[in-house]
């Protein structure tokens, strides 16, 4: 069969479908998001975005209890939210196969930390598979479903950014229909109160031994003998780097890394002269290899971030490639809020309130960068609200304290925080940035925007009603593109002695399909005052004389800059191609 170019995430979806998965459920998070977005395209599978990873894992647990196969997807930090579910699902085990697809982000391309999911597999005592390319992603997901049912256990498939978003050729198979198992009530297995949980612990202990036996002979773990003067123990994407960086070295490529495959390690080590472990993120393998009394070659590779073939080759004295000199003095280019982003209007207005702003996870975290500089903290999904209350409790701040949280993040873990503020009698202010989508991860539906994963209409959460029901005394909706009106509401609500929710509601700029003509600066009228520059819009810069200039290719015509210009120097012009494509 012809092989197809697929990303690791596409291959996971294909593998789950081939494995007869009935239900896919998850919460979007880079680099895991495309798994469910692709799985939903297959016939015979129902997919759902849950409001958070815990709910997703619970839904998946229910599907498994009901006897069907299910895939639950999330990024690494999402498993922290779902960990409460996983650690006890490990005790109950499964009825229908239950697979967690968890994607780590070495190098933190799009994450707030760099945690290693293998630690959660060890902690919850469930097996973990690590594919190293798209083909293995497909095969390992299918294997994960088999292992889940055979050993009565949830199984984690751990991806990393380069496996999830890397593409490679994949040989696809056919779907294997798996009948839903008949429901049987089994209280001892499924009701985890202490007496039953103690019984199930025996299952967990025995299962771990069985899985170690399985792992010793599993085809997911593979020894490749080449030159035996150096043996490399490796897993995941690091295997690809080792094959390119140290092509002559023998390798023990581990696909099933939890439970730790002790006997294979001992076999491999006995046949090579020197041993080294090369893995990304935590020293999971190397600590355990050392614990067996094995001496490892020190390689000096970085403890965090991503590896590469060359880093590995050079760590072992490989030939230096000739390189060009780096160009010095280049300005950094951090990501930024898009042209026309409604969050820009909100942060611009919020800046004038001089508030302490506790922030949250989403595109709007970029509002923390200069010149908007609109955020004092960002930790995890939902943290803005609890932290705003906490800063207030500390008593050291005599300025307004404002929590800023996106619509999807609010649905994920903001509601309970707001409930607590109301319960505790807070007079703080919470701004919900409702841009009608889960923007950062690529515009997924969520309970607030009323779009289901397949694009169909779903009930839309009424944020105003919800906020009042939870206990906010004042709930107001503003259009953040209207800068003066937004500022007026922010001033009133931060000054008021009651709990306020402000819903800053305008669609993400990338959702707006109609082309609006860009603006340009009238050179005669521009006084070089810099007011428009302070919006931090990527379309606006200064020319050599200090006058504002608008790049007509980048400008999407949102009109925020028109409102801040006191000299009417910003005027709408025609399509960008009339100006030679932006110049």
């Amino acid at each position: 069969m012809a092989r197809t170019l697929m990303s690791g995430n596409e291959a996971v979806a294909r593998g789950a479908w081939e494995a007869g998965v009935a239900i896919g459920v998850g919460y979007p998070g880079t680099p895991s998001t495309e798994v469910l977005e692709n799985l939903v395209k297959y016939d015979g599978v129902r997919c759902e975005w849950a409001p958070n990873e815990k709910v997703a894992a619970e839904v998946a647990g229910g599907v498994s209890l009901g006897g069907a196969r299910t895939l639950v997807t999330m990024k690494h930090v999402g498993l922290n939210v779902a960990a409460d579910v996983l650690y006890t699902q490990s005790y109950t085990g499964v009825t229908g196969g239950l697979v967690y697809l968890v994607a780590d982000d070495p190098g933190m391309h799009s994450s707030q930390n760099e945690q290693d999911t293998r630690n959660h597999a060890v902690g919850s005592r469930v097996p973990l598979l690590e594919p190293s390319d798209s083909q293995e992603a497909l095969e390992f997901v299918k294997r994960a479903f088999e292992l889940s049912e055979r050993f009565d256990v949830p199984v984690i498939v751990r991806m990393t950014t380069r496996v999830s978003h890397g593409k490679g050729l994949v040989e696809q198979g056919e779907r294997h229909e798996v009948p839903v198992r008949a429901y049987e009530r089994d209280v001892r297995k499924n009701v985890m109160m202490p007496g039953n949980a103690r019984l199930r612990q025996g299952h967990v202990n025995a299962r771990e031994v069985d899985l170690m036996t399985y792992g010793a002979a599993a085809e997911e773990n593979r020894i490749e003998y080449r030159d035996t003067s150096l043996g490399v123990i490796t897993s995941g994407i690091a295997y690809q780097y080792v094959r390119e960086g140290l092509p002559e070295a023998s390798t023990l490529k581990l696909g099933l890394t939890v439970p730790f495959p002790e006997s294979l390690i001992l076999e491999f080590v006995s046949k090579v002269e020197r041993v080294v472990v090369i893995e990304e993120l935590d020293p999971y393998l190397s600590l355990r290899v050392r614990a067996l009394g094995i001496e490892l070659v020190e390689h000096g590779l970085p403890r965090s971030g991503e590896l590469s073939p060359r880093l590995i080759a050079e760590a072992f004295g490989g030939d230096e490639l000739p390189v060009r000199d780096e160009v010095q003095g280049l300005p950094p280019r951090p990501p930024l809020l898009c042209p026309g982003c409604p969050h820009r209007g909100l942060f611009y207005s919020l800046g004038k309130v001089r508030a302490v702003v506790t922030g949250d996870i989403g595109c709007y975290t970029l509002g923390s960068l200069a010149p908007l500089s609109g955020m004092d903290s960002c930790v995890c999904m939902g943290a803005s609200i609890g932290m705003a209350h906490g800063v207030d409790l500390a008593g050291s701040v005599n300025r307004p304290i404002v929590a800023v949280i996106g619509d999807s993040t609010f649905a994920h873990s903001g509601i309970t925080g707001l409930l607590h503020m109301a319960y505790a009698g807070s007079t703080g202010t919470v701004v919900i940035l409702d841009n009608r989508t889960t923007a950062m991860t690529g515009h997924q539906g969520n309970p607030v925007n009323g779009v289901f994963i397949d694009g169909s209409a779903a009930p839309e959460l009424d944020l105003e009603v919800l906020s009042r029901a939870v206990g906010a005394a004042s709930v107001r909706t503003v259009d953040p593109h209207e800068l003066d009106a937004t500022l007026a509401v922010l001033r009133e609500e931060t000054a008021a002695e009651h709990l306020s929710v402000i819903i800053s509601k305008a669609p993400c700029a990338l959702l707006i399909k109609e082309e609006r003509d860009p603006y340009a600066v009238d050179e005669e009228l521009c006084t070089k005052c810099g007011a428009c520059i302070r919006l931090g819009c990527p379309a606006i810069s200064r020319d050599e004389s200090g006058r504002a200039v608008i790049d007509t290719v980048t400008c999407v015509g949102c009109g925020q800059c028109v409102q801040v210009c006191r000299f009417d120097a910003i005027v709408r012009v025609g399509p960008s191609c009339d100006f030679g494509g932006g110049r």
Partner: protein
Amino acid sequence: MSITTVVLAGVGGQGTILAGDVLAKVAVAEGHDVKLSEVHGMAQRGGSVETFVRFGERVYSPVVDRGVADHLIAFEVTEAARTLRYLRPGGTLVVNRRVMASLPVLIGDVPAPDGLENALSSEGAIFLDAEALACEAGSPRSANIVLMGAASYALPFNTATWERVIGERVPPKTVEANLRAFHLGRDACAEGACAL
């Protein structure tokens, strides 16, 4: 074991991901093993973006190191300079003559870099005005395909394969404009300095 490595560098939103996908599919269609790597998510929001495409008989790493790339296709001048480290001596350097100031430059925190075009020229850069050619093709958004047309001149693939893959990959309404964009980019190279 001969592998060809192409790096596409630009600013999030310029269409490097689609361009990389087109290139990878062309390489697959012509019988190569292919690996592609890119990053999604926060990095895409107007930040520096890099897409790696590698093809040959057997490709292991999707990630590219310094001094490895045979071709660097830069969608923006500053990003060309930033990613020049990937290009091996003697590699092909195609640069879109567009300059997009990053936020720290826009707001005056750091000065705009000086003399980049000269520096890139001395490294053998071939410059194109992709946006102008894209407008000529009928769609200002086809600048990424203009650049792939330019890159195609130095890559070992048939024009018919490029045309077929572009036709399958871009939105149906924009196929004609993108095919024109591809040829305008390719012709610009054929008539200009691309002939190395």
